């Protein structure tokens, strides 16, 4: 027996209306929002790190459209010399990318991202700001994030590798022997991890007194995934965000330890138009947070930099390719927009005294520009021709 057509139409309409209304309903006050879908913000390896002794910069050079002829370079600017110097560690093809972590004791740990047939990551450790290097390795592929390695002033090392959504390895002494500290699934199943809804691990930092720190993506709205190793387990030390950010997932983009102060750059919102929040730990165990910095819809991050006080500088691009430069005005402060950097700028550094430097590349040419804040103009400071050997990685 067939139902009359009008009945079918009415029933269908009621079903559609019910479905539509349920999608528009407002949660009752006081309801605890559940986990929301994970989002990921791409953080390029181009980055700078400032310590109290100098600045380190990682940039891609060569033929950037050809991965086999893109060679990553490491530059340092020791405060003592005030000049940028090429210190890329030799002996390994670095087409896959380079990550670096300086510490206050003039040590720099550099890690090579795997490329082509290489599936583990060689390391290079310098105790003299890149003047000489000794080799090391991680028995796995380093995660492709700027803070995939960390070195502490007491000689410990951390490495974040890609296995199983992220795994943290620890080494004491020589960076060739590593032990597993934690991986994503272990952390996710712990009480601390479940409060965050742990997604991929995104950064590591190491402090001589605090120990190992780790940044993650959190599905739980408003929860910042910064974890600290404590007595064989992990505790979440990242704060819970308020305001609009309280209802969105988060991702730790950068995590650094600067002489006991932990700095973190956190993304929140959604993938198409994320907001960035700079954070710095304070002496009383709380976090100073910046106001959110909204990135242009469809834009992306080009580079991130850390200044020696724990603040961040972010170079972003609009969908039309134009560059935007934002400087966090100290931990817990706001964001200040700076004049657009010169053409070809790959990364931005904050030098001693708060001087902002734009580091531009054009194939084999590295140029250092400095911002004159009162006039808002960039002046060229110097340039270096990098002896890139095209074709040397195949």
């Amino acid at each position, binding site marked *: 027996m067939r139902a009359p057509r009008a009945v079918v139409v009415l029933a269908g309409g009621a079903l559609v209306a019910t479905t539509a209304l349920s999608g528009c309903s407002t949660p009752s006050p006081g309801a605890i929002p559940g986990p929301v879908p994970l989002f990921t913000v791409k953080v390029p390896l181009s980055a700078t790190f400032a310590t109290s002794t100098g600045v380190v910069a990682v940039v891609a050079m060569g033929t950037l459209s050809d991965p086999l002829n893109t060679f990553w370079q490491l530059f340092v600017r020791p405060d003592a010399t005030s000049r940028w110097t090429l210190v890329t560690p030799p002996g390994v093809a670095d087409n896959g990318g380079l990550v670096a972590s300086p510490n206050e004791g003039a040590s720099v740990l550099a890690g090579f991202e795997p490329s082509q047939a290489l599936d583990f990551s*060689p390391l290079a450790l310098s105790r003299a700001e890149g003047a000489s290097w000794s080799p090391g390795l991680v028995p796995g592929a380093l995660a492709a994030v700027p803070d995939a390695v960390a070195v502490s002033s007491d000689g410990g090392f951390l490495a974040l590798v890609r296995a199983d959504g992220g795994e943290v390895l620890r080494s004491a002494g020589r960076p060739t022997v590593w032990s597993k500290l934690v991986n994503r699934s272990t952390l996710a199943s712990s009480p601390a991890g479940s409060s965050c809804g742990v997604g991929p691990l995104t950064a590591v930092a190491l402090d001589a007194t605090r120990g190992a720190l780790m940044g993650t993506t959190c599905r739980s709205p408003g929860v910042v995934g910064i974890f600290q190793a404590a007595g064989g387990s992990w505790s979440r030390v990242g704060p819970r965000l308020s305001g609009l950010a309280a209802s969105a997932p988060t991702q730790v983009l950068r995590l650094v330890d600067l002489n006991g102060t932990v700095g973190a750059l956190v993304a929140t919102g959604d993938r198409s138009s994320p907001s960035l929040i700079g954070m710095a730990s304070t002496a009383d165990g709380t976090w100073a947070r910046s106001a959110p910095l909204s990135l242009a819809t469809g834009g992306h991050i080009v580079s991130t930099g850390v200044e020696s006080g724990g603040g961040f500088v972010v170079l972003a691009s609009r969908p039309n390719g134009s560059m935007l430069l934002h400087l966090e005005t100290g931990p817990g402060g706001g964001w200040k927009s700076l004049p657009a950097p010169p053409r070809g700028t790959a990364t931005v550094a904050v030098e001693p005294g708060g001087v902002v430097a734009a580091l531009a590349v054009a194939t084999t040419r590295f140029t250092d520009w400095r911002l004159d804040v009162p006039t808002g103009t960039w002046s060229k400071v110097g340039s270096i021709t990098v002896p890139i050997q095209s*074709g040397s990685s*195949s």
Partner: protein
Amino acid sequence: MPGMSTYLQTKNPVVVAAFHTALLHQLLLIGFILVLLSIAWNALRTVQYRRLTGDQAGRAAPIGVPLPPEPVARRALRIGFGLFWILDGLLQLQSAMPLGLPTSALEPSANSSPAWVQDVVHFGVTLWTRHPVQAATSAVWLQLGIGAVLLVAPRGRWSRFAGLAATGWGLIVWVFGEAFGGIFGHGSSWLFGAPGAVLLYCLAGALVALPESAWGPRLGKRILQATGVFFVAMAILQSWPGRGFWQGSRGGTLATMIRQMAQTSQPHELSSIIRAFGRFEAANAWEVNLSVVLLLAAIGLAFCTTRPRAVRGAMFVAVALCVADWILVQDLGFLGGVGTDPNSMLPMVLIFVSAYLALTGVEAPVRVPSLVPAAATQAGVGSDTIDPGAERPWWDRVASGYLTRVLATISALVVVLVGAVPMASASVNPNADPILAVAVDGTPNTVDVPAPSFDLVNQEGRPVTLGDLRGRTVALTFLDPVCTSDCPLIAQEFRNADSLLNADSSRVVFVAVVANEIYRSTAFTKAFDRQEGLDHMRNWLFLTGSLSALKAVWEHYGIAVQIGPAGAMAAHSDLAYLIDARGHTREVLSTEPGNGSASSSSFSVYLAAALDRVVHT
């Protein structure tokens, strides 16, 4: 040396020489079998002659029952496509075929097709790339053989078999060589050869394989109707908007195609004609396409009527259109060094002309039948005549002309087999032809001098000297444990060579010495072994030592190691030394991996063969 990879050029002299040598050897084999068959033919004729002269009275006269002559339409199709297969076989003789066909013809044919078509074609490309000489020579003989059988076996089972063989091989070529004739790609058009010339070869083969009784006006009608529907469908496709055929100078599909064809290596006069037409087409694309669409549709509709008069008129127009397209658009199809057939237009003409002949029932002139004994017919060597009254064995009574034809058919089948057997063998052989390694790395340098000693440590830090390895053959090379390109490939070649040695594996030890001044500790050799799966290989040693010890070994073995600046990989010589059980270097090989997995796999076979020589001398 990393950063200086050697790439195989299309006309690499080593591969071309091997191709020619293989063809010559196979030709000699065919010649030898032909000589044997000629001797057999002569012996049979001698027996017949002796019987004839010794026993005139007892020889029963052969009684033949004549069969109707072969239908003209079938004969035209058979002979026409026999000649096409011969031409295609001759085109396969071009020197660029072994290395050029995959990159210049097979892969480009699939470029505009969906991923699954590219995957299918990739299978064929891999097979050809790994065995370029075998594949190229097989293609020559298979096509010459199929053509020859079609020509010399006019009737009976072998003739129909030739039709089936043509269809089978044609389908293989259509799928793997023509990417299904490009019918799944963008810009497919009758003008460019859709649905693929070889599909027409398959169709012709299938028609030849039909029983002769099927050849008549009805078959002609069916073929013409199908051709008519095809032409109308091609007219619709040609008229479809948004495919660039209505567009002229700026990116017009036809103009672009003609421009590309004009750049093919060919006589100047021909390219001038094509360029001129290209300019005309670019300026009048809309009118040209409209003409093509209308002509295709009119021809198709006329064919569909199957009325002889309408078909005859349309046929002349179609022949003119096909020939014009063959010259002006398809550029004769076979120029440029890796052209494998004259493209689709001439085969298409042959098919619809044959269909017209079948439709109109044109008969062949009646000829005097040859006489074939029944036994021979039952054996399947022929069926156009029978001898119901035979009392003597068939070899005693078989007619000279018939015998000649049978032997010619067997000879042609031998040619097919000479092509098919190596192709079948190549398709099941996972290891690439070692000729590729020779082409990339040259022939090994043969010596007999004491190998320089070394004193290094293995992956576990235990000392190893060359003296410790005395009594076993040593394959020694130099690897950078943090190398991203060549060294992992070379290590895999060594590993594969070990597996190819079988029982001799226990008599060989594979040794690598670190070739990186910085990344040289056992931590790196172990990591490299794990990465390459060498940590479970019993006879594998990755040796290292102090920088001074390593430098001494590098120097003694003539290995240059350089650390480059600015993110460059450490560069080093790619060499392998084969040291015999006495500690003497016997062969020095370049280990440059070349371009791609085929040459790497090829080196494994090459290395295993070289080790086999050293082990057994």
